[in-house]
């Protein structure tokens, strides 16, 4: 089972492994990357031309007073600049494109992977935190790919080029100049040790901010209702401050590192002046060469400064990718790994055999559950709240993995079935209705494009949703907003009902599907169901006993165990839990029941007659 994905990550030096894994994302764009590297090579070469032209100009023309040569050099220089400009733009564009594509790929990877993670994972990880992985964490990698990786290569090219030129010009002076490099390495190492943990901290804390925001924005009205704004604000300010703090810490080291690199570069220049100067005095070096040397040295430190600047990007990219790969490394729900077994459409026989289940460890929520639902039967599950009714459904739909026992559908263990196929055969109405933002129609269809408009309208009529939809100015195209917020609780349930029926399921599961619906409408829906579900299996969970009266079988769950099972009459006769629940619900009416009543079956009650007439007249 999946736990909470920890935000703490061991601070081991596995950067290179992470990096290698990140670089794998470059693979599909090999051609572009290679091309862009070539461009960079050219650009670095062109960059070297400037100072060299200066050297030639000084040594050959200026000191000899030849101004016509100067014109030629200027023209050459102009040409070089223009080409560099075009190449640079091309290079940026290509690399940005690659970076964007890679981020796209990463986002797709994470998103798709998340779809297949088991629900227990989502139980423990707030949505806001998970969102961070797909959005901000990926965004951090943007710089790495678009400007980082390749410019790092570019910088390295430039460095190599400069070193080469320096050695050709004067190898002794070059050695002196480059003697500062070990110092640089040392500074970088020190810096890296200090900041790496901060960058991880930053990623972790932004995720916390996101999680807090997502929860508090969706629950803002509750906070307001209970006047807890001040307290929530304090909490927010605290995590916000922690985030700020994590940054302030990096700023300190960062502010130190950058001047340090500058100082080291100044050291190099000082050495050139000192050593090179004495060579000039000893006439073993031309003055022009010295000037060029200084210019090259300055250019040598540009990319290094650049690299140290990039170091920031690299570190935060590492921290972000660590978090991303943590998600990608989670094993997907086993139910997605099955080879789909080709089956005839589900018939609808359900069997639980000695099933035990716990969400955590040995906290049994279901103990030794055994029952059978035959094809075409209507079975009700009742029991006190928290008894484990919903948990039974969670197992049947393979949302969670049972611990012991077997669950069979049409005689086949559900673990041998593809979860997607299984769920596609079931019409499930969950206790907590969730609607997507988007039109009523989209919510009814949920990807089911074959469904005709006529059928949609027919279904909405069955569940009495049509009257509400027709009131909306845009009808079926009305946007129901996030979580269906423009609908009343009952309307949402009706929509969820229609949505489940739209799949024409062989097995219908209603988990408190009508709890927020008035009894009158409920009755009408039940009649419609009777017709729709003829010959099909349904499992109904309800607290309102009126909802389940005409079930073929009633299962009474108490504290995770099956305590009673049988028809309504049988259970009443037993005079135990069911009898007690029944008494409470109807005692008032018994006490009062004075009215003379119409006899007959439910389909002849006045409401349904009215309904029939309406339908006939259409």
């Amino acid at each position, binding site marked *: 089972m999946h736990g909470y994905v920890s935000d703490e990550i061991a601070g081991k030096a596995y950067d290179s492994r992470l990096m290698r894994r990140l670089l794998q994302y470059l693979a599909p764009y090999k051609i572009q990357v290679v091309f862009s590297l070539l461009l960079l090579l050219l650009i670095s070469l062109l960059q070297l031309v400037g100072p060299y032209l200066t050297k030639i100009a000084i040594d050959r023309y200026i000191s000899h007073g030849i101004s016509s040569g100067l014109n030629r050099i200027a023209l050459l220089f102009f040409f070089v600049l223009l080409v560099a400009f075009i190449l640079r733009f091309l290079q940026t564009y290509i690399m940005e494109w690659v970076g964007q594509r890679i981020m796209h790929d990463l986002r797709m990877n994470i998103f798709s992977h998340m*779809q297949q993670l088991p629900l227990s994972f989502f139980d423990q990880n707030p949505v806001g935190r998970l969102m961070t992985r797909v959005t901000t964490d990926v965004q951090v990698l943007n710089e790495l790919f678009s400007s980082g990786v390749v410019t790092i290569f570019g910088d390295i090219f430039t460095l190599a080029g400069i070193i080469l030129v320096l050695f050709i010009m004067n190898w002794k002076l070059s050695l002196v100049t480059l003697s500062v490099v070990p110092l640089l390495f040392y500074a970088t190492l020190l810096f890296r040790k200090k900041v790496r943990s901060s960058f991880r901290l930053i990623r972790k804390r932004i995720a916390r901010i996101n999680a807090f925001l997502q929860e508090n924005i969706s629950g803002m009205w509750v906070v307001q209702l209970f006047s807890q704004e001040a307290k929530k604000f304090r909490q927010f300010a605290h995590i916000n401050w922690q985030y700020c703090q994590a940054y302030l810490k990096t700023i300190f080291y960062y502010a130190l590192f950058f001047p340090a690199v500058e100082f080291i570069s100044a050291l190099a220049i000082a050495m050139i002046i000192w050593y090179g100067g004495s060579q000039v005095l000893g006439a073993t070096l031309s003055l022009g060469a010295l000037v060029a040397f200084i210019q090259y040295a300055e250019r040598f430190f540009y990319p290094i400064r650049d690299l140290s600047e990039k170091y920031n990007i690299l570190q935060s990219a590492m921290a972000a990718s660590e978090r991303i790969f943590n998600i990608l490394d989670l094993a997907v729900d086993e139910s997605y790994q099955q080879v789909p077994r080709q089956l005839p459409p589900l018939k609808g026989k359900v069997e639980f055999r000695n099933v035990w289940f716990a969400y955590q460890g040995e906290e049994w929520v279901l103990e030794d559950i055994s029952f059978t639902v035959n094809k075409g039967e209507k079975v009700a599950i009742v029991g006190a709240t928290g008894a484990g009714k919903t948990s039974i459904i969670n197992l049947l739909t393979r949302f969670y993995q049972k611990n012991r026992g077997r669950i069979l559908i049409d005689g086949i263990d559900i673990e041998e079935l593809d979860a997607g196929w299984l769920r596609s055969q079931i019409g499930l109405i969950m206790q907590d209705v969730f609607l997507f933002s988007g039109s009523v129609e989209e919510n009814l269809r949920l990807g089911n494009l074959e469904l005709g408009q006529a059928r949609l309208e027919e279904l909405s009529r069955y569940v009495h949703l049509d009257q509400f939809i027709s009131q909306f100015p845009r009808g079926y195209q009305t946007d129901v907003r996030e979580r269906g917020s423009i609908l009343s609780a009952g309307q949402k349930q009706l929509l969820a009902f229609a949505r489940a029926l739209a799949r024409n399921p062989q097995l219908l599961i209603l988990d408190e599907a009508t709890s927020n619906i008035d009894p009158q409408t409920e009755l009408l829906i039940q009649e419609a169901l009777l017709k729709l579900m003829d010959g099909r299996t349904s499992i109904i969970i309800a607290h309102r006993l009126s909802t389940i009266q005409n079930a073929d079988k009633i299962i009474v769950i108490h504290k995770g165990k099956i305590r009673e099972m049988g028809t309504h009459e049988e259970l009443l006769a037993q005079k135990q839990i069911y009898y007690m629940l029944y008494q409470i619900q109807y005692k008032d009416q018994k006490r009062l029941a004075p009215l003379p009543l119409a006899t007959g079956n439910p389909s002849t009650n006045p409401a349904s007659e009215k309904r029939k007439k309406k339908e006939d007249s259409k």
Partner: protein
Amino acid sequence: MILKELSPLFSYLSKHKKGIAVGCVWLILTNCFVLSLPWVLKYAIDGLKGGINSRALSFYASLILAVSLVAGVFRFLMRRGLIGISRKIEYDLRNDFFRHLQRLSPSYFNRTPTGDLMSRATNDLDAVRMLLGPGLLNLFNTIIISITAVSLMIYIDPWLSLYSLIPLPFLSLIINRMGKELYWRFERVQAHYSRLSAQVQENFAGIRVVKAYGQESDQIKRFRRSNLEFVSKNMSLVKIWGFFLPLMLLFSGMGMLIVLWLGGKAVIVNRITLGEFVAFNGYLIMLVWPITALGWVLNLFQRGATSMGRISQILQQKPDISNASHPIRVTSLRGEIELRNVIFAYEENSEPVLKGISLKIPPGSTLAIVGPTGSGKSTLVNLIPRLYDPTGGSLLIDGTDIRRIPLKILRRHIGYVPQEGFLFSDTIRENIALGKISFKEDEVMAAASASQILEDINHFPRKFLTQTGERGITLSGGQKQRVGLARALIANPRILILDDPFSQVDTSTEEAIWKSIREKTAGSTKILVTHRISSVRDADRIIVLSGGKIVEEGTHKELLARKGTYAELYRKQLIRQELEEL
């Protein structure tokens, strides 16, 4: 356009006036020292030409070291100061953003996707921060370096300087044109990022439905679509800003070219010395980085302005429910509620949901509201804690207009159990305690026991410290509902509003809860919305709401005698019960 969007930032900046001033001093000092380096170089090279001794040479070398050391110290101070301030402003801004959200009413959040707000608070804020930190810093830097470098260059040779600055006007022209385009394109990118966030947020929040309905591949397909669009929006941005850096480099290169060409000629005709020429070149090289940085800074500014605009959009949103300008002074409420011809519509010009409700609830009495789905029951009770304000008519509590009662006082006296509860991913204890500003342990306990959740809680291994998961995902439906109930009961409110509070609870628990509520809140005004007729009977008054109007009202007996909607509802339940008896 940039300035207009950025103007809200000035007040944040002025809060750190002193820090910024000090930082600027460091910045200037840093640059003074950095800029004196080429000067030293010039002397060294001119000296070499004139044949100085090696002692002077080591003097120059150590001078270079000393100068850059001091510059480094100042640079450190400057970076730490100024970048630190940008982080603090980010902190302030994010706090203010959240504080403002807290003032907005539910109708605002109904309209605005959560993911959108989230991305403004993080992604857009990040762009603003970049502007404030590296953006401003580099801008100052650029300005200072340019001014000093240019004036030194002018000092060396005015004509040469003028030549080298020829490309500048062209540059500013091009940048101006591109800047505007950049602004709009970035706006589109950010808007799409919001959409992407909202999509992800919704998918994760609804993962159960996604799985139950096998929507995984469909969702992936949708996500891919907007993901690809995001890529193309970004690329359209790149087309503009990808030009910036190369352009800057081109123009600074042009400056160098002019100096090499014309400056070289000046040396030939002996107008300047070779050393001056080299120093001049040095200054120009120094200008390369700031000018290149200018391209980058401009990019940051445009982005920051766009994002600040998006944040301001939220900050400028007027809270539509807030304290009146002249609130009355009350500290406690009796709990008398009166509605006078209340009309309410969720959106302007749409058909009202409540169409003229008049009603008087005496303090301490119990009102039950029944009626078909969508008839406006929840809407009606939402008006009492002012989640929404009526569009017409008036609502009075204790005889005063509800808008004149301070919001805090009003809400503190109301216990509300919403139809669709909301738990925070926190412990059960914290969730219950949310109902009261300060609380004692035994109050939490008492509230839990009154709502019949205590036994369940004691069953959990971590008792009251059990984590509920987001929205209470790890609790059963009825457990969630009862935690919500306990939250409303803990403060012992004067007005208790129960919107279908037992819908997920079995009848025997329901009865026990109802009993303890009546004991615990004997003197409070209670409003109960329900579909279960059995719990309505004892109410002092029952109203039947249908289509946003009160169609019947009275006591249980009166309503039965009237043989109207209520009686029929009641009869229908009887029919079924009687059927069973057959």
